[in-house]
């Protein structure tokens, strides 16, 4: 008996009972689909965060200092511009830093006016972050030092206020004050829910004047080497708390931490869904055992006939074992298809990158093979052991 004989016989007898075979596979289908959806979504979310971070040039060597104990900060910030400047001087492991002030204001050109996001940065922003100027220039050192009223606008602001002509050199009014447009940022789209096209960037000093504050919303810090991040954190804590703050007046976010926060949220979910997946695979396994035992019973006479014409122990075993494997594998493949389809659907709907985890597919197929294998052994052994005469005499 060759492998294709075994396969043909398995497919034959499963096809003879289509509905029953289908229902038997259901447990495996659900289990496998869950495994795929689960692992793929998890990996997709991770890639998403990674891509977003890298998209704005905030790689694994980046870190954010947030004022306050927690997010979002409920106490007013105590971080000042001098603090961020001090970081470069005090911590040599730091490649560079960008202080950030965020607010919103009405921006007006001609008779067009609307509310947009105002960001205050230092001149090194475009060098560190992957967010470049498309035309004109970015802010200069002098702009920052001298609190100049210059600004760089995003693509949406340009589209809303300057339809059809070049905004460079034009004057806009932000909260009523006159600013000169020196540049237009490239189109960037949304990053982590933040529209990087709908903003106006001004010197950090000017932003503080405009928003009437001497505080910062955050400081972005880049390490020369990723592995120095913990050390940098220590140093910054040390000198900031030495200056004017308590230890819990600020906290840090690294990309790893953001991913791990995401991880704990999805982790709980993952544990739950893994449980469901494991249970349905187990149920699938028991279902296959059960149906295989019924099938062995029903086909006792067939087994007798096969033995009478010369089937050995092994031939009968392989026949029924093959059937169980095909059941498991077909369940696995259907689960694979529905899992991939569902995962892709969820990903497109939620805006996550469509990513099907290769190892989830391998894991799912391994699971279904394992189920087919486990479920097949006992019934196939029962079939193989049947006594030929009793089997031939069996009435059903």
């Amino acid at each position, binding site marked *: 008996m060759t492998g294709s004989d075994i396969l043909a016989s398995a497919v034959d007898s499963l096809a003879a009972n289509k509905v029953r075979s289908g229902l038997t596979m259901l447990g495996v289908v659900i289990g496998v689909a869950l495994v795929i959806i689960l692992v793929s979504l998890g990996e997709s979310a991770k890639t998403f965060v990674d891509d977003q971070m890298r998209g704005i040039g905030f790689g694994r060597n980046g870190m954010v200092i947030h004022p306050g104990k927690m997010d979002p900060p409920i106490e007013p910030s105590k971080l000042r511009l001098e603090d961020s400047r001090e970081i470069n001087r005090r911590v040599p492991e730091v490649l560079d830093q960008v202080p950030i002030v965020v607010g919103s204001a009405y921006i007006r050109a001609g008779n067009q006016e609307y509310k947009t996001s105002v960001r205050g940065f230092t001149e090194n922003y475009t060098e560190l972050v992957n967010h470049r100027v498309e035309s004109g220039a970015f802010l200069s050192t002098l702009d920052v030092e001298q609190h100049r009223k210059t600004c760089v606008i995003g693509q949406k602001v340009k589209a809303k206020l300057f339809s059809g002509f070049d905004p460079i050199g034009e004057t806009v009014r932000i909260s009523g004050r006159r600013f000169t447009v020196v540049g237009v940022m490239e189109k960037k789209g949304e990053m982590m829910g933040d529209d990087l096209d709908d903003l106006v960037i001004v010197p950090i000093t000017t932003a503080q004047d405009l928003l009437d504050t001497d505080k910062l919303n955050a400081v972005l810090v880049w390490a020369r080497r990723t592995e120095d991040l913990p050390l940098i954190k220590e140093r910054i804590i040390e000198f900031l708390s030495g200056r004017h703050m308590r230890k819990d007046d600020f906290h840090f976010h690294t990309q790893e931490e953001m991913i791990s926060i995401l991880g704990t949220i999805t982790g709980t979910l993952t544990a739950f869904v893994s449980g469901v997946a494991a249970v349905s695979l187990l149920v699938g396994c028991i279902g296959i055992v059960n149906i295989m035992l019924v099938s062995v019973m029903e086909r006792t006479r*067939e087994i*007798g006939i096969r033995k009478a*014409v*010369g*089937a050995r122990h*092994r031939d009968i075993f392989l026949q029924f074992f093959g059937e169980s494997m095909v059941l498991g594998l077909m369940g696995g493949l259907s689960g694979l298809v529905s899992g991939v389809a569902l995962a892709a659907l969820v990903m497109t709907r939620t805006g996550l990158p469509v990513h099907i985890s290769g190892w989830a597919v391998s894991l799912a197929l391994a699971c279904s093979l394992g189920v087919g294998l486990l479920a097949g052994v006992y019934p196939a052994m029962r079939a193989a052991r049947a006594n030929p*005469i009793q089997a031939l005499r069996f009435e059903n």
Partner: protein
Amino acid sequence: MTQLPVLELRQLTRHYDTPAGPVMAVHEMDLRVWRGDFVALLGPSGCGKSSLLNLLGCLDRPSSGELLIDGVAVSSLDDDGLARLRNRKIGFVFQHYHLLPRMSAVRNVELPMMYAGVPPAERRQRALEGLERVRMSHRLDHTPSMLSGGESQRVAIARALAMDPSLVLADEPTGNLDTRTGEEIMQLFEKMHREGTTLVMVTHSPEMAERASRILRLRDGRIESET
């Protein structure tokens, strides 16, 4: 003449243990069947014909005594050895045909060859030839449920002959058939006999038995007489 008997029975015994005590279905039987013999086993119901045939066909093992097939002692073989023996040396024809219901006629005939490891193309070729010999070439793809009793039995005969066995065993092969169809099957057996196949056939009918070369009458698990 030092020809080896196809079958040699030495004090062959098979008893069944039942709650009502042991049943001697086959009792200390001695017999030799030679190549080319056509043996009919005749006897009243319950005298042990089927029990004997099952022993001869290695579907069952004796309680005591010895059975040699082509000189090989069956007791020396394990289950796989017996399976091999059934596959290569023995062809069965049953009263109830015992074809596999989901398989077409050709595939039923291919079955013993599949277990013998004959390659698929050769299997198919030999099955077609076999069906031709029993004049069933017009029903190759029919499954057993689409075949008449006589047609089913012809397919079963083709299957029994598929591996060109030393011995064909038939347990009431015409028992389920009307006289005319039974007659056709008997003619097939006579043809097999003429072509040199060794046959042992169980029957209830003395007329059928007459057509064999040897008639053994059984009673209570023993050979009562031979003609």
